[in-house]
């Protein structure tokens, strides 16, 4: 039999084409990489989540301008950008605790500090923008990491005065995590504090409470803080809107969750007084 290279090539191409038409539909089920929706998902698959935490930590490192404990100095502390987004500010005691360097161990350590950043500072005056690339990358690598969206949106809204971009980022987070109470809480804060839109804030926070109550019980126990934040903020919102009765109900609910129910009782007492002072206008007097 005579071997013809062009014919063999054509035959092989035809065979490859035929096999491709048959295999294409099956191959779709073999891997989900190409359905991930972004480049990182396609390149790394689920392995990308390993990098997401690192990039989130990089955002925290940048927030501290490089003054950051290494794995040898650090003992399971929450990232400070996450703490700041929950309204935490450093007290003098915190500052002392965060001085992870301590006294130099030896002369080499002492001399080496000439070449390390040894001051604990935070980014401010809009330089907070420098953490955004790492948060963006962390969100692309692991869209299920909720903290990335809440922290990013907080800094965009509160520190950089960009509520529109914060909302877009939160909506992206919500699309990836439709049941996240944390994202709904942050979205409610955005409507309340930046847009002063009480109705939308109320709707979003109430949805957050409903989503929380739909969670399995063990998860509810772990995430109790977000429910407390939702309920207290709803109570404050109803108080601001003049719905004192509803505000009292939310404060009563918050008392069951709060570590300091006595402080909330003061609010409840004040609201009860306000409610009692509201004298309904008799219809007869209007005519």
């Amino acid at each position, binding site marked *: 039999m005579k071997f013809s290279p062009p014919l063999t090539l054509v035959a092989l191409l035809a065979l490859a084409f035929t096999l491709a038409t048959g295999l294409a539909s099956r191959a779709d089920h073999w891997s989900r990489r190409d359905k991930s929706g972004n480049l990182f998902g396609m390149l790394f698959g689920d392995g990308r989540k390993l990098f997401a935490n690192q990039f989130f930590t990089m955002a925290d490192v*940048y927030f501290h*301008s*490089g003054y950051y404990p*290494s794995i*040898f*100095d650090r003992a399971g502390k929450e990232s400070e950008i996450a703490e700041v987004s929950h309204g935490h500010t450093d007290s003098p005691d915190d500052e002392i605790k965060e001085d992870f360097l301590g006294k130099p*161990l*030896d002369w*080499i*350590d002492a*001399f*080496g500090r*000439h*070449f*390390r*950043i040894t001051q604990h500072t935070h980014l401010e005056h809009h330089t907070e*923008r*420098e953490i*955004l*690339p*790492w948060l*963006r990358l962390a969100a692309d690598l692991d869209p299920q990491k909720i903290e990335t969206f809440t922290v990013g949106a907080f800094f*965009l809204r509160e520190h950089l005065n*960009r509520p529109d*971009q914060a909302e877009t*980022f939160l909506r992206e987070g919500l699309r990836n995590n439709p049941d996240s109470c944390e994202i709904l809480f942050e979205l409610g804060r955005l409507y309340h504090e930046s847009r002063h839109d009480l109705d939308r804030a109320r709707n979003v926070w109430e949805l957050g409470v409903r989503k929380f109550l739909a969670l399995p019980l063990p998860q509810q126990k772990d995430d109790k803080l977000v429910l407390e934040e939702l309920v207290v903020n709803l109570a404050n919102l109803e108080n601001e809107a003049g719905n004192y009765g509803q505000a009292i109900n939310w404060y009563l609910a918050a008392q069951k969750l709060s570590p300091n129910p006595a402080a909330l009782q003061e609010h409840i007492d004040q609201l009860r007084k306000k409610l009692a002072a509201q004298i309904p206008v008799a219809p007869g007097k209007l005519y």
Partner: protein
Amino acid sequence: MNKIFALAGVVIKELYRRKDFYVLFVLTALLTLAAAAMNFFHDEKIVRYVKDICLLLIWVSALLVAIVTTARQIPAEREARTIFPLLAKPVSRGQVIVGKFLGCWLATGVALAVFYFFFAIITGSREHIWPLAVYLQALWMQWAMLAIVIAMVLLGSIYFAAPSSTVTICFIAVAGILGLGTHLHVIALQQPEPMQTILTAVYFTMPHLEWYDLRDFVVYDMGLVSWPGFALATLYAAVWTGIFLLLAWLGFRRKNLTT
């Protein structure tokens, strides 16, 4: 001294004839420009991540240029048998060691200057500030560190069998010192004996290359390192370079070049 400079000149010519530096520079430039072109939340003023990425690439590239160029100097001369006419000039073995070191160090310095010039252009075009003193301090410290590394590799190239093993071992050593150097004493204190003593001894006797990494000062706009610290670090680098060159000369002096 002329002989040493002549030897150094040959090494510098070799660097710009080879493709290593050009490839690394183009790669650094492309990756930096790609990073700079990324848009995060429509904010044009974000710049620190670009500085961070560019400096990391500069560090990796400079280490590659320095280690790979140095590791093949003496083995290549031996393999091509050009070492014999070289030593017959007459050039002493000590002069060969110093000439090779100086050539590699100056060649790496030229490469570093090109890298930092590119870095200054890229960051200056985004930040619109030019902290040249900070950049020069960072460049000098990196170059001083590379002097220790080049001398260390030259020593390795005398004792190890092939340039590949010299490159691998030196890379591991340098990466280990840069990554763990600062923390080695803390790690040592957490270990049981005799590991504690061994690690503590290593900590006190190794060259502390991590001091020369001023990337954080550049990236986070932390200003200049104190000048006394800077001067002492330069002296420390000179001392370690001298130690490695002396050890390399001692090894090379007794080395049988025919085998």
